[in-house]
């Protein structure tokens, strides 16, 4: 009797698995086509000769690479994204840590606040921020390192918060903290040597998302009259067709390369983020 009872579910499972795997491949293919087709089309367009419109020439890429504005704006956007990442992590890691440790009832409130940048369109946000900071000193208001980064930190808030929140939920914050305090460590040491290394993956995810947001943010930058990489892409797009495709692809590649670099820097062999068992 028991052999039959075991066999039946196995046959049932096999019957289900085959069609499931085929449909999975179909969906994967559709997804790949959806994402890759525009990239392939853009690439094919970008390698047409800028004078004749005939394939194949890398002259569009040459135009971009020899343009000083390209290097200036991409450097600015990259540095702005690093500053945003730094400020966001400095601000939100201790906040989320404290909320998890001492104020767990506030989690839904902070989660709700984190959703606000999603529902307020950037155009509304920038108008509000420009008005709010109008009387602030020039070193802040007139500089991308000040005003623009302040806006980007708000824009990145939901991504950073939810990444960190999931990271903190994956570890036993209370026990790790108490174990560290019990051994004589203070709060800063506990945060830096025990907590932060164990939410590293979450912090890296937050950094990825922030980088992607800042490297592609156009509305706030253009309305506050700063020339960043996305505004440069827009300018090229309006003036030169083939280099516009080239610069779009390059920005895509550069963003991915930057993400990969952060991933490699953040990775450490041996250690692994693990769920801590146990209850409280």
């Amino acid at each position: 009797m028991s052999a039959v009872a075991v066999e039946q579910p196995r046959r049932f499972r096999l019957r289900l698995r085959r069609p499931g795997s085929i449909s999975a491949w179909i969906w994967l293919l559709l997804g790949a086509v959806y994402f890759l087709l525009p990239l392939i089309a853009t690439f094919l367009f970008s390698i047409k000769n800028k004078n004749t419109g005939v394939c194949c020439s890398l002259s569009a890429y040459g135009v971009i690479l020899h343009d000083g504005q390209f290097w200036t704006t991409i450097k600015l956007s990259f540095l702005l994204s690093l500053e945003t990442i730094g400020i966001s992590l400095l601000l939100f890691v201790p906040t989320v840590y404290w909320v998890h440790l001492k104020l767990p009832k506030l989690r839904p409130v902070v989660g709700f606040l984190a959703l606000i940048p999603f529902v307020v369109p950037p155009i509304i946000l920038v108008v509000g921020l420009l008005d709010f900071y109008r009387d602030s000193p020039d070193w802040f208001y007139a500089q991308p390192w000040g005003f623009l980064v302040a806006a980007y930190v708000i824009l990145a808030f939901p991504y950073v918060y939810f990444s960190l929140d999931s990271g903190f939920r994956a570890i036993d914050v209370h026990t790790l903290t108490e174990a560290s305090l019990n051994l004589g460590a203070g709060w800063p040491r506990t945060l830096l040597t025990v907590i932060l290394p164990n939410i590293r993956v979450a912090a890296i995810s937050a950094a990825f998302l922030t980088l992607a947001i800042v490297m592609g943010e156009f509305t706030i930058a253009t309305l506050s009259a700063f020339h960043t990489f996305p505004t440069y892409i827009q300018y090229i797009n309006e003036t030169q067709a083939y280099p516009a495709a080239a610069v779009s692809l390059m920005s895509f590649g550069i963003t991915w390369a930057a993400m990969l670099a952060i991933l490699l820097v953040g990775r450490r062999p041996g250690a692994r983020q693990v769920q801590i068992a146990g209850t409280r």
Partner: protein
Amino acid sequence: MPHVELRELRRSFGDFEALKGISISLEQGEFLSLLGPSGCGKTTALRLVAGFDRPTSGEVVVDGKDISGVPPNRRNMGMVFQAYSLFPNMTAERNVEYGLRIRKQGRGDRQKKVQELLELVGLSHAGKRYPHQLSGGMQQRVALARALAIEPRVLLLDEPLSALDAKVRVQLREEIRRIQLELGITTIYVTHDQEEALSVSDRVAVLYGGRIEQVGTPSEMYRQPATPFVAEFIGTMNRLEATVVDSERGEVDHKGARLTVAAAKGLPYGERVLVLVRPETLELSPAPEGDGAVGLVGDVLTHTFLGPVTRLKVLGPELDLIADIPTSRVESLPIGLRVMARVPDEGVRLLSLPPAEPAAPEPAGQ
């Protein structure tokens, strides 16, 4: 002077009083277990000693000094937690070394001490492994080594074995006791497992509802429970509610059955008492046929094999008893046999019960 004293410790969470004023003291090198069911306040008491929580009132005194206001990182108390608490980003060695680094000990001293401690807990071969590469038992051993590395004034153990399987639990509790005796370190051990508490402790404090019910040696707790709760909680106990009927001879009446209990001598006639009898002290014999069967009479309902002894459940019209008899004798008392239980004069505990409330008058007209 006691090494550690808890003086009238109280802790409230809103309206809920988790600790209702517990006082207890430990001598240097003593192993005390706080034993009780979930929610009795034992972990709350330990957290107050560790400094993770502040008492509503009362004091935690170590070496004559009140440390209630001292933060946990300045108390120098080693703690092993119920949950696996090793830092996942550090190897076993680095975990043990953590407290020594904070104390700015030299590299050579640190490494020597780490090796000594890992050897002490039998893990000198696993120092380079990360927590996820260690079993639950190994993780708790490393946690113990880590707690001992800082040479704590008091070692606090918060149900450190509860997540482990039965065999490892027994093995590790013996190791904890061996290490504690070797180092002579004052230890407070929190557990809900009475077998664990009785097997390793110098003294046991049973907590219930935020109060200490009884403090004593494991033997005292087992043989002389002071309250019905302790009698129920520690080991298995037969509870027979009875009334004193002959104070000179020490006779009590339990639902029509007369028992002679030495401890009942001198008690006033009519006093309600609780006769507590351990299963291993009950004596069973086949009941004689006819009217000869008097006293505690019932039928053998089940046999439960426990190794050297077999546990028999005896059920009668007014009786529900558990008796442990040597397994070699079990064939003479098969299931279904009518047996007579004899309560020995000695080895029986007697507790006074509050007088029975008078029966409510029946409604008129019935």
